[in-house]
Each structure stands twice: as structure tokens, then as C-alpha cells.
């Protein structure tokens, strides 16, 4: 069964010119108290489901802000299947806050009974495709809404891969009618680590399915296998790199204006720093919109 796209378009149109921020627990009291001028908030449900106090504050914020739910625990790439209890809890949360978007990762994180607390890569081949498509359909049917799949940050690939990541994502969209979350910083980082052209990747990305963009910081480290070379690690512990901002501007021109989120998960800075990053995204979007308007002859 295909799940029809039923994103609340009015709300999406309202928020797409404003960047959102990832709402992390250290900021929640300040956001509740000060209600900063941010377009929308994105949460990891796993931070709230076992924390009733945080959940109570979230429900209060959901009355004022559009909320997007970004899961890290729905393991669509796992051979062991999806944690149905977790999916049930996710549905309960979704029913409570009626988020504008629900998303997750093209990754796996559970094996046997172990939850590995990371987003681990899968090979891009028919076996993985069938598995991920089956799980995405299961999630969408359970939630009764489209699920957005995010492209991963990558450090390695697999000998068993038979297709490019963008082909894999296109096939997932085709087979499940899911939407995509394009993490521009992940594209920038992975292209460096795996040696491909980030702009060509964006050109090949299934633009028509993109419903959200992410931006986050990474940390360069020396590649232990190649002294002098760097490997970029997706830490979300610093500001978005200039190169990723340039790729973002290109992406916006390519995909059109899409809701954009600033992620910052470690060494979390003052809220004002995050708001400054959203202002930069907003300025890039405004620039893209004015260029479009000029092309349309209204300037």
C-alpha cells in the first residue's frame, strides 16, 4: 500500500522561508521561557519519550511552534527489523503533537537486541533496497503519513554496493513514495571522505522528493591511514562550514526553497549562536528567492 503525501502544505509554505533549529534538552527551558523568533523546531523523539518532564515542555512548545520529528532510533536498514515498540511510542508522540514532518535516516542501528547508538551505513544493492523499502513502508503505514529519509554522513562504502547513493534514494522514493531529507552538510562531508563531487551529487539527487534540508557542523581529523590527509567526522559540534553554506546556496537554487534545519548536538552553544546560523540560512534563501523573482521579471 502506498502512503499518499499528506504533508500540511499550508504550514510547510509558511515555514519554508524560515530555518528551524534542532531543539536539544539544554535549550528547552530557555526556549520555553523566551520563545525565540525561530521558524520551527525539530526534535529527536528519543530524547523525549523516556523524559516526561521534557515531553511536557515539548507539548507546551508545540502549541506555538511547528514541530518536526527526526528519529534516530528507527533502524530502516537493520536486518533484524524495526523496533515495533519504539515505533508505537513514536506514533503516540506524532498523534500528540501533529508534527509538520517526520523523518529518519538511511542507516541501521540495531543488531540482535543491541542498540548501537549510531547511524551505521548499509551497502547500496538490491538486498538493502528491498529491506529498507519494506521497513519504510511499515513506518509510513504505522504512522499514516510520509516518512522522510535522510542521506547519511559517510566515512566508508561497501564492496557489495552496486549503485550510487542517489540511485538508491531514487529507488526508495519510487518503491515507497517516501520523501527525502537532504542533509547538505552530509553531502559535503561524504564527498570529501569518499572522493566524489558534492555538486554532481546534488544534481543527481531526486529533487522532486525533497521535503527538508539539514545543515550541521563537522570536525576534521587526521586520517590515521593516510597521515597528512583529513577525514571529516559528522560531530554536529560546531558551526556550519563555509563550503557547506556554498553547497546549500547551490542546493536551494536547484531544489527551490525547502524548510531548512540547523543541527547542533554536542558542545551545544548559547541559543543565540544557533539563531545566528538560522539567520544565515534565511539570508541565503532570501537571495535565492530574489534571484528567482528577477528571472521571472519582477525586479
Amino acid at each position, binding site marked *: 500500500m502506498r502512503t499518499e503525501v499528506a504533508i500540511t502544505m499550508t504550514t510547510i509554505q509558511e515555514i519554508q522561508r524560515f530555518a528551524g533549529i534542532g531543539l536539544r534538552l539544554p535549550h528547552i527551558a530557555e526556549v520555553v521561557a523566551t520563545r525565540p523568533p525561530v521558524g520551527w523546531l525539530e526534535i529527536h523523539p528519543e530524547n523525549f519519550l523516556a523524559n516526561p518532564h521534557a515531553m511536557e515542555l515539548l507539548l507546551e512548545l508545540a502549541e506555538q511552534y511547528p514541530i518536526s520529528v527526526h528519529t534516530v532510533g528507527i533502524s530502516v536498514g537493520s536486518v533484524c527489523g524495526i523496533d515495533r515498540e519504539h515505533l508505537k511510542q513514536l506514533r503516540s508522540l506524532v498523534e500528540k503533537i501533529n508534527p509538520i514532518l517526520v523523518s529518519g535516516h538511511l542507516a541501521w542501528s540495531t543488531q540482535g537486541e543491541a542498540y548501537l547508538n549510531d547511524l551505521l551505513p548499509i551497502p547500496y544493492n538490491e538486498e538493502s533496497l528491498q529491506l529498507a523499502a519494506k521497513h519504510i513502508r511499515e513506518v509510513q503505514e504505522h504512522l499514516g503519513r510520509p516518512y522522510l529519509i535522510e542521506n547519511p554522513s559517510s566515512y566508508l562504502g561497501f564492496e557489495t554496493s552496486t549503485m550510487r547513493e542517489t540511485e538508491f534514494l531514487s529507488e526508495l522514493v519510487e518503491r515507497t513514495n517516501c520523501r527525502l531529507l537532504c542533509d547538505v552538510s552530509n553531502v559535503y562531508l561524504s564527498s570529501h571522505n569518499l572522493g566524489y563531487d558534492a555538486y554532481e551529487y546534488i544534481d543527481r539527487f531526486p529533487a522532486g522528493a525533497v521535503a527538508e534540508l539539514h545543515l550541521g557542523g563537522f570536525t576534521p581529523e587526521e586520517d590515521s*591511514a593516510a597521515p597528512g590527509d583529513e577525514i571529516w567526522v559528522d560531530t554536529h559540534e560546531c558551526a556550519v562550514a563555509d563550503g557547506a553554506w556554498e553547497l546549500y546556496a547551490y542546493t536551494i537554487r536547484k531544489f527551490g526553497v525547502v524548510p531548512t534545519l540547523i543541527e547542533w548536538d554536542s558542545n551545544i552553544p548559547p541559543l543565540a549562536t544557533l539563531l545566528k546560523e538560522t539567520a544565515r540560512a534565511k539570508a541565503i534563501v532570501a537571495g535565492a528567492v530574489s534571484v528567482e523573482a528577477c528571472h521571472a521579471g519582477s525586479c
Partner: protein
Amino acid sequence: MPALANIQQAMRQAIVAGVSSDLDALFTGGKEPRKRLEIHRRHYEASLVKAMLEKFPATTWLVGSAYLSDGARQYIREYPPQDPCIAAYGATFPQYLALCPGSDRLPYLQAFAELEWHVGQVSIAIDYPAIPIEELAAVGIDTLPATVLTLQPGTRYLHAGWPVDELMRYFLTDTAPDQLEFEPSGVWLEIRGARGEFRINRLEEADFLFRKAIWEGLPIGVVAERLLEFAAAFEAGKALAGIVSAGLVAKLAVQGDCQ
């Protein structure tokens, strides 16, 4: 060509247990792609050790961050999380830590860490409107023994053979003396909290047993009988009124009554 199930099994072994013998041919990327799996192994370890340090700051204060981190590293290897909600992970860590080499010098370590675990759990709870005493009074004498009380979610009970609440107070108030003569002495603790706040109350043993049995969901009649066996002079009615007037009871239901 290895199937996905085998790849994921091998990756789990590498990430959780650091065993990576079968992975050479699996990966591409960089000069030595297998070394890049180390980034995931390191993230697994670092993120969960950090989570344990954040959950147990008082225990870290007591034993030092190196000792706690070492214990956490072993714990996450032997007992990986089973749930993506990491806030719920670590309930058995106090017990595990108390079996780590060197812990025999701190016989109160497990109880202290358990107290801290409970403090963390009640602090993120929310409380519900407490039932008024009139609601309890309205329960008929015939149905009272079968009545089950649900206590506020942010309530826990802990019996320790050492006064670990004193140690916790030193930590919380940053008033630890240079030297402390710490002697074993039983304490019966009630830990209550909600919305970022908590308090630790010492109870008399009988009152502790009564409240803990109520907290476990036993019917009032069973609890009263158990306490009378423990202490013939125990006043169950007074104890019952005490937990209601303290705002501890969030719900009252008669066992077997679907309403």
C-alpha cells in the same frame, strides 16, 4: 559475497566488542577503509561513556572520572543499550560498577550510585494531582483491603546499609569535609521529585516497608497484613493517611474493578 545479515553482525562485533577480524574485504573508501570503522566504534563508546558520566555526576565525584569511565566502557561492551531512548539506559550500572576491581574499598558504592540513578529518574518525572483524603475516606470498609494506590511517578524507595544520603548531601552542597568517618548504618530512603527538582527523605523502617509495598502495587489489605507481621504495633491507618496527606497518591482503584 557476504549477505547483509553477516555484514551487520561483523560490524556489531567490531563496534561493541572491538573484534574486527572478518572485515577486511567488506569496505571501500580511503587508503585503509577498515580503519574508518573505528570512527563508528569510537562514537559508540564515547557517546555512551559521556551519557553515563552525565547520569552519574555524584558517583563520578566519589570515585573519579577515570574509574567511572573505565567501568562504563566495560559496561557498554557487555550490556549494550536495548532501547534508543538513552535516558532509560544505565539502571543496572550501579550494580555493575560495584563489581569492578577496586570497588571493594567502597562498600557503599552500589547504594550511592543507585540513589543517584533514582534521583535522576524522579527529577525528569512529572506529578499528577494528588487524591484528597476525602477520596480515600469514601472507600467502603469492605473494599479498602482490595484497594490499590498508585503513587506519583517521581517516587522511589531505597534501603541502604550506609548513610549514602549524607554523602549525596555533601556532593550537592559542595561541603564535603577533608576527612570523613563513614560508618555503616541502615537508612530507609524515599526519593521524590518532579520537573527538575527532588528531595530525599529518611523514613522509619516500618513506614518505608509500608510505602514501598504500596509503591509496588500491592493491595492495602496485603500491605497492612505484611506490616503487622513485621511490627504488631504498626498503625496502618495512620500510615495510609500519611501518604495521602503527603500528596503521594495519584490514583486509587479497587482491585478487580474495571472502572
